[in-house]
């Protein structure tokens, strides 16, 4: 679906305009690359508030570097942005120190982190959607696939062997679970 050179579409021009001090071009860059940066920030942080901070910090630094002509090749812009968000994420972890998360009681409500009540509410909503997905899968074996692969990060072959599953079935379970979650997520609700 995507061809090589896709990033090039106008990105070189965008970078040149940013270097020339065009603030509209900065907004365009945020619009175009911001959603993926936000996702990567989310992927590397514990909660939405930390992700938002990391996202902002990355954008500020990215724009500074582009303005300062530290990136030239439009084709390499995604790689540059990706490296930036990861490096900043690692720095933030170091700055704050690292600590092992103490697992909560499985049946207790989620901890709201240092974030506010809305974060807490959203965490609950995510849990409810996830429970809906687990109900939707219908059997314990399929549920095990999700937990063991996505969370325990066990190799797919080991899970298939253990649960006596074919690879096709294994990927179908993951696909169905993701599609169901996405459906709920897009609607913002699970029924």
């Amino acid at each position, binding site marked *: 679906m995507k061809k090589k050179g896709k990033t090039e579409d106008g990105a070189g021009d965008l970078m040149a305009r940013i270097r020339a001090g065009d603030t509209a071009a900065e907004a365009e860059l945020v619009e175009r690359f911001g959603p993926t940066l936000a996702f990567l920030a989310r992927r590397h942080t514990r909660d939405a508030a930390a992700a938002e901070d990391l996202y902002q910090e990355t954008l500020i630094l990215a724009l500074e570097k582009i303005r300062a002509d530290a990136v030239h090749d439009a084709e390499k812009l995604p790689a540059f*942005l990706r490296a930036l968000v990861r490096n900043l994420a690692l720095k933030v972890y170091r700055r704050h120190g690292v600590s092992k998360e103490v697992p909560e009681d499985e049946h207790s409500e989620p901890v709201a982190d240092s974030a506010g009540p809305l974060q807490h509410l959203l965490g609950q909503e995510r849990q409810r959607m*996830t*429970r809906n997905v687990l109900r939707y899968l219908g059997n314990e074996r399929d549920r095990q696939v999700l937990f063991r692969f996505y969370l325990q990060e066990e190799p797919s072959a080991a899970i298939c062997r253990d649960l006596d599953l074919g690879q096709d079935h294994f990927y179908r379970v993951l696909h169905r679970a993701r599609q169901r979650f996405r459906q709920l997520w897009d609607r913002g609700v*699970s029924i």
Partner: protein
Amino acid sequence: MIRPMEHPTIEQKGVLDHYLAGQLEPEDEAAFEEHLFTCPDCLRQAQAGEELRRGLADLRGETARVPTAAPGDETSGASASTLSFPSPPTAPARSWRSLAVAAMLVLAPLGVLALRGVDYGRQLAVAEDQLSTVRRSLDTVESELETLRHSRTRVRPAAALRLLPLGVSRAGEAAAVPVLEPPPEPSSGGDTPWVISLELTATPQRPLADAYSLRLLDGDGGVRFHAEGVEPTSYDSLLVILPQGFLEAGDYVFEVFAGDPGEAVARLPLRVGS
């Protein structure tokens, strides 16, 4: 190494699933993340997949993955494990904010669907008229529900909706019978319906059923309302809308059955004030 890291290959080889599971080679992970900058479809799938993964982690009491340093990263040397760090209290990500508002939009239609299960034509017509009022009030419902869920005491009606959660308290203490109070003046809010949330308690031993049936019995054991095939909401509750004036003052009980017909799972008393 997976090459070319392009959309068809990504789909064929289950790249997204291996990415979510943290099982891509560093080069493949980098290539896939770069692909996300140019492919809205993969990005959307990755976002939903990551939230699902987090949802699973929430249920297991775990937290975020930590980036592993790729070769050449100036910060290489960090190890991948389950870590956390404190975050300052700031505004949440936009996508979740809109989700919070959208999350409640299902409440009213569900309740009306439940009401469709019985032959109360007049009440149904009234309820459907009231639906527009309900829709306008959904923002209020959201915060009300959360508050009520934690307090589990007698309800202060929301601005335009009368909302009542029925269920057993988590701590197991005997709660007072919830009361539906009519509005102080019939002209002020007499037309607004009750939204009743029948709260289900899922446990690992007894997960939620896909659908429930309900009966509302009056003090003489007469069935005043029944509905089948009611699916639990994402809040693990069954929602019912009852028009004001549908029930006279007195004691009632909601009976909840898993399946149709099914095992009785709850008897939830309710009192309508005079």
